[in-house]
């Protein structure tokens, strides 16, 4: 009997164990980020560039491209994005449909293991340019998460819209996205997306890591780790 259980256990361990993957990007440990529309605290940090065109032809940096940085102080997730866009249009869609217009999305997950579906701690965040006169009058919300997401704005956003695109910094408490805390060395999953709508509705979708045109499969996201700058 013991032999049978040992064999069973061995088969379980062999077939059920996961590989350990390398890290593609870093979430910087930055204890002091102010959401004020001044972006100097992000200077000198490595950025993740969305140069994979998932939809809408090939990647054309003159048309649209986003450079992203994530940071944390252990209790909040800070987001920085500098989006180059030759035609920035304020987004008038309802939050549930705001992907049809200019916007950016950040996929972030602290749940462990490969997963087809969102687990607690996995979120899709969307930042939507709503105003070119008030830098704080923008929307940030959890577009999708383990419980399905919501469209109620959360956190704080500051966005500067300019001739070559828009630059944004934002913060959202980790507890609002289902994560308790982050610490240096912790592994996470992350992905960045730019929705670009030059004339009508979205005509190009750009990603940093994944070529898959879906928002609901965390296993396709990139691999990140919390690290000191």
């Amino acid at each position, binding site marked *: *009997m013991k*032999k*049978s259980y040992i*064999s*069973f256990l061995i*088969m*379980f361990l062999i*077939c*059920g164990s*996961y590989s350990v993957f390398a890290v593609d990007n870093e979430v910087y440990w930055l204890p002091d980020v102010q959401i004020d529309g001044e972006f100097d605290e992000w200077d000198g940090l490595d950025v993740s560039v969305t140069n*994979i*065109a*998932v*939809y*809408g*032809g*090939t*990647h054309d940096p003159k048309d649209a491209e986003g450079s992203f940085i994530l940071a944390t102080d252990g209790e909040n997730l800070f987001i920085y994005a500098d989006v180059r866009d030759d035609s920035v249009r304020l987004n*008038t*869609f*309802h*939050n*549930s*449909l705001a992907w049809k*217009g200019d916007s950016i999305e950040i996929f972030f997950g602290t*749940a462990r*293991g*490969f*997963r*087809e*579906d969102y*687990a*607690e701690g996995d979120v899709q965040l969307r930042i939507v340019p709503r105003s070119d006169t008030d830098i704080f009058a923008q929307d940030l919300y959890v577009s*999708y*998460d*383990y*419980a*399905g*997401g*919501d*469209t109620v704005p959360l956190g704080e956003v500051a966005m500067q819209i300019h001739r070559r695109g828009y630059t944004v910094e934002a913060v959202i408490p980790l507890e609002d996205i289902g994560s308790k805390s982050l610490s240096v060395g912790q592994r996470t999953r992350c992905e960045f997306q730019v929705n670009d709508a030059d*004339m*009508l*509705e979205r*005509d*190009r*979708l750009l990603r940093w890591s994944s*070529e898959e*045109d879906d928002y609901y499969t965390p*296993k396709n996201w990139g691999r990140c780790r919390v690290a000191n700058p």
Partner: protein
Amino acid sequence: MSRIHSHRYARAAWRVATCVALLVCLSPVAFAVLPYSVELNKDAENGWELLVDGEQLPVNGVVWSFTPIGDDFIYNLWNEEDRFIRRMIDTDGPLLQAMGVRAVRVFTQIPPKWITYLYRRYGIYTIVNDLMGRYGVSVNGRWYPNTDYSMPETRELLLAQARETVEKFKDTPGVLFFIFGNENNYGLQWKSDAIEDLPVGERQQERARFLYSLFGEVTAASKEITDLPIGIVNGDTQYLTIIAEEASNIDIFGLNVYRGPRNEPIMFQSVATALDKPILYTEFGSDAFNATTQLEDQYNQARFLRSQWKEIYEQSYGKGNSQNIIGGLIFQWMDEWWKYGLQDDLFIHNTEGTWRQPAYYDSIGGENNMNEEWWGIVAQSPKTDKHGINLRVPRAAYYTMQDIWETSLYDIEGGQIDQYFAVVDIEGDVARSGERTLGDKIADYVKINGSLAVAGRGHFSDAIASEQSGAINFSHEEEATFEITVTPLHNLTLQTTFRAQAGFLDDALYDSYGYLITREDDSSEFSYIANDNTSYSRTPIEIYSAAFQYETDFIDINGYFHDGIDLPGHPDYYLQGDFFYLYPETFDREGIDLGLQKAPFGVEFETKGIAEGLTLFVGPEIFWGAEPALYFKFYRELFDGFYLGLIHYEAFQEEQFNSGLAVTPNRFPERKSSVYVQYDVPIDFVDLHIGLGGLIAGTEYLTAATLEESQYRSADGTTKTIGFADTLGGKVRLEALFNLTPVFNIYAEYIYAGVVASGRGFLPRGGSQITDGGASNRHEVIAGGNIWIGDLVISPKIRWRTPLEPAIVSGPNRSNGENSPRPVIDPVYVHGGNREILQGEIVLTYDFTGATWFHEWNNDDREDAVFAASLGLLYTFYQGPTDPLPELFLDSNFFGYGTWPAGHTREENLWSLQARVVSNFAPRSKIIATFQMGSDQNIGRPDTTPEMRYSGTVEFELHDFEIGLGLSHNAFGPEDWHFNQNIRAPWQWNALLAYHFGVLSLVEAKNRIGVEFRGRYLEGGTSESRTALNTLGSATDLYRMEVTLFYELSF
């Protein structure tokens, strides 16, 4: 030719010509020319308008739905009799007309004459919709669920189909225009080298370009045939620029849009800028079920429609905005109860959400809030009118639209719109639709169903020496069931069925339902024998079945007692990694339910979310014949195309094995574990799946209390002890689907099973008679394939097997269990399984209606082809000797295992043929015929020569009548052991006539009254057969017959 003859011919010709002329004149459709013109006009100042004979026509429309409660997606109204179709149209027509509907959207199955009928009688136009392969297409005999619009053959086929559609309807009075597709842009999922070679970001657009260029070709071809406008049905506004490039010739841009209460001006501007075509909403609206309150919500459905139509008016002709929408088709006219579950719960108005749209009124967190079965602006009642048509119950939205359409969008000024819509009184419309009664409110939480059945039977025989000699014996049975379903919480459902019974039908022909052994007329209790040879007592009132379902975000808990909430039982887990079928399917359905057992009986836990894939099923009898046990499963896709399944089955109690042998053997509590991995290899032209499984079973023998219990007798005469290696099994399976012409697939599996490593048998499927029997002690290979040639499928298959421990073919005379070389309790003993075998099979299946699989369990009801058939031939090239079954004691009341027969089951070549034909030869008329013949060897009667058997059945469904006939010659009795022991009857027959009220089902009849004759003629049969098959009579009876009158009603 004489003059007289020539006059006769002339008169006859004149009469024929007169008749033809009259027919032509009276026919409403034939040779008709449209009595109106339809055109789209863009006024530079005011925008787009639709003109019929020069008059503006607002497209105030609905997507017409008419599927009755109890039917599903294959329902086709147009296959019904004309009388019924007319009644259906006359049910909806007046309501549509009174509401103000000017046009309905209908798919191409509709015969032209009904379009004309709807138009002439109710003034309602029809927009004819050709789906253009939206839900798959059959090309060169292969069914493609995801249509590949780049394939030349597919394009030619769809183009020809579109031409045919336009030709068919172009002169039909009532047709307003044609639309093609149904959000086909959401189904662009095919793969090809040409597409995969493109950069990722261009692949979807390239696929879309193929789709829209085909739309362009279809539009051009259609315009060569008709002057009526041509449109497409797009999913939202996706690919506008590609549409502009590839299909700029379309007249109407139709879009299915579900963005919420409004779509915002940018959407109309986008279409105007990119396409400059008039917009028609081909689907939009709101469901009437509130996911937040879990109640019907007529107010919010009406409120959303008011908002959506206000925007249509604002963006229409002459309003100064985009001025490019000509109307909308509300989705949909009437609720359809099949949409959740598709083929299940057809009589339940399901409230589960199937997708999520936060912009709707009942968005709650991330839960699905769109309820597919509640989109009607008219509900349908389970009650029917005298013609059997479900009653229509207009919702508030019906009256709201009636108010709105009172003034056409062309007849209102832009500045008047706010005021016009502000006075639409939705609260009043809710009141008009009827206040919810206390009964309605209770019905939200409690549902009651039930049934009543009464039957009387007379049976008689030619009994010579029987006490019942020459007598006719009567028996009767009455049964009533009462099912109550309570939903106290939106995630908790409780269901119980009580059954009351009186009387008991004597089963003179020994059916599979057990038989009476004692009856005390002055007592309320009966006792009788079940198939497992156990005596049961039955009380007049019992809990027949019960179930519960509790759902949370993390775990679902399902309770089963002879039933489940969603299914009448429990399916197997074969598609979830149970490679060795350790859990067999268990359903309470006519013909397969072992009525006296209460399986499945247990509680199932299924995890969701991060732990998705874990299942624990534990209970006293989780499947038929199971002892108290638990079943554990983990199954999940770990990586792309890589699946892992882990299964463990553990019984807590040894199985009591009833035997007539001197020693009543017990088997140890079973323990079985398996692991399964599958990898789907990504190759372009072939879908390749590799499955690999391991099994550990029979380890209970390793811990037997005595050495003897863990030993078995080998064919070489020695006694061997079961070791760990004997408990191991394995299986590897390769399956490949080749996307070539013709399309074909091949598969092969090799099975190794140690001498005690048994799984469980897999039910043969797909018309085949070969399956993995799940036995231990074997090497086995099963290989085969399917070739699709047009509507014909050719399915060859072979099997080779050899035992690890062969049968014992020589030894002492087997006069009883003690002297048998291999007793029935021997762990290696397998009923006829430990033999070498080589079989070949071919199954031919012809069925041109792909939506109803010919070999599905309920195909008798679902098959909708005019003609479909299958023919299967199994030939056994060789089968070697095997351990025989012990003989049975046979008497009129009881049977049990007895002595061992002499000799062993010999080498034989055998064959078996089976055929089935289904024809829907006329509306509401169907015939199903089956035929089987073959030679069989009986492992309980090794010395008998294989004999031929023949049997056939014919079933007719003629309107509301069911007629069934069956006849067999030299066929076995109804029980499994009849086959094993060569219990045959020279002739058996049955005839049934029933009248059905309500839905006629040949699979699960619920409402019918009828009479059935069954009989058996035994002269010429063996004395054993006469003994075994004369359950209630004498062994010398030569014939037995019974007549049963029955009445069954459900509500």
